[in-house]
């Protein structure tokens, strides 16, 4: 079981409606369906991933996050999840704003590009960082918009998004929530729970 999935599970209240943007093969959705009795929906752009979801009996749409979110109605989901997805899209800000429109709460996880191993890699090698968490070459990585924890907090503020909660974790560290000292330097990954800041129209 992936640690980030377990972490996300904690935030999902039973019987809620969940949309996973970039749901991959549907593991997280299946977990939330089984253990939270959640009413789950997924979206992914890849045929083979969507096929895996269908084999699991999940409701999923093969669509493009970058341009196909407009058909979702405002606050039609309790949670919208962007699990390691935001850094792979063309317009992360647009997608983030769409997510907080569609979901009452949004859970975002992403790899922190300011982790010390990434910093050292660039400093020492002078090449685009390749780490265990980020194993791709610069030319074939799906992660086209890298950012750091600091960047994310900054952009959330700029877009008037409310940060409800945050957790920092290193994927290997799967025993409970680790306390990470100076997360922008020592956390490989981050999780943020967000919503629209001035949203009196929903609970």
């Amino acid at each position: 079981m992936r640690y980030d999935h377990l972490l996300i599970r904690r935030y999902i209240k039973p019987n809620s409606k969940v949309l996973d943007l970039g749901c991959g093969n549907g593991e997280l959705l299946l977990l939330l369906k089984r253990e939270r009795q959640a009413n789950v929906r997924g979206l992914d752009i890849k045929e083979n991933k969507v096929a895996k979801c269908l084999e699991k009996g999940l409701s999923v749409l093969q669509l493009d996050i970058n341009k196909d979110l407009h058909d979702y109605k405002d606050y039609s989901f309790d949670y919208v999840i962007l699990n390691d997805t935001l850094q792979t899209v063309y317009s992360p800000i647009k997608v983030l704003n769409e997510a907080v429109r569609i979901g009452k709460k949004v859970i975002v996880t992403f790899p922190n590009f300011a982790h010390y191993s990434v910093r050292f890699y660039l400093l020492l090698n002078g090449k685009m960082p390749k780490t265990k968490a980020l194993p791709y070459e610069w030319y074939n990585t799906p992660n086209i918009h890298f950012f750091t924890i600091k960047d994310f907090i900054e952009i959330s503020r700029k877009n008037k998004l409310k940060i409800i909660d945050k957790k920092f974790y290193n994927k290997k560290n799967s025993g409970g929530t680790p306390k990470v000292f100076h997360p922008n330097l020592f956390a490989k990954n981050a999780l943020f729970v967000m919503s629209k800041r001035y949203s009196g129209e929903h609970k």
Partner: protein
Amino acid sequence: MENSKSIVKTKYMGLKEKVKLESGKTLPNATIAYETYGKLNKKKTNAIYIFHALSGDAHVAGSNSKNDKNPGWWDYLIGPGKGICTRKYFVICANVIGGCKGSTGPGSINPKTKKTYGLKFPIITVKDMVNAQKKLIDFLGVKKLLAVIGGSLGGMQVLEFISSYPNSSHLAITIGAALKQPSQGIAFHEVGRQAIMRDPNWKNGSYYNNAFPNHGLSVARMLSHITYMSEKSLQNKFGRNLQDKKSLDYHFGIEFQVESYLNYQGLSFIKRFDANSYLLITRAMDYFDLSRGRKSVDGAFKKTKSKCLVISMSSDWLYPTKDSLEIVSALRANNIDTSFIEIDMPYGHDSFLIKNNKFPNAIRGFIDNYCKEEIK
């Protein structure tokens, strides 16, 4: 182990009441040819209905006789242990009215005149086809189907079914379908119809006691067959290869393999299809438009309760993915639980008829999981 070679017989049901048609006319004494596979359970909750495409028929799986060389048209998908497992499910498929594979059509005897209908056969629509088949479903005692499934014209019938009978199927799967027949589709159909109607043997549809309009029908099929394939699949299959020779003969006979293939397709089609049925069914498809009589097409699914799976095929240019996405939008506008996948196969619109694992896996996952979770 039971295998797909188990013999299945075509059955016939006579409709007692007249079928009221969308045109205002009626069809008396209609017969519906159908086949079933597997067993209907006691609660009658395991029935899956398959709607066939333009040139299909009720024989969707298995064999009709011991030496049957042609197993059903979707045999790779339906049978014991297959994508739609007939050990679990009761599968039904019927020939559409207006067809020529056992259900009443223009080649049948008109009870009023005791002669073949020919052009006296009333114009039918997709809705008429569906209404007639609903009577078969009622006759079989199935109140609510587990699933309705169809590709192409079959997909149009699925859409019509969940619109007209919004609470009569738990699940619905459309493949390479559209909310309305696109202009290009009408255009190709019209060329086919003209080829038939300009054949001197057609004689306004009254050819049953004379020579058949085989030239026209075969040309119509050659054309439509191209629209069911893709540029890539034609290129891969034939390229510019010459037919059984090494050099050109400089004449208008067969030079290229692709010509020979198309001619063969045309000739084999005339053995199994009636030209007037071809006119009628293509016309029915051209009329298909779920927005007709409605403010917007979304209204067609206002009451629909079925959970839906919409499938398009990456190489299908006749009913491209864009058309399937319009179905997805209309369903979602009505808060219908909808899944969508664009299956990546190179064979064009006919991809769903060509043996593969993608369709069986997707359809099995969609139906089996629903049964586990929802049908107790």
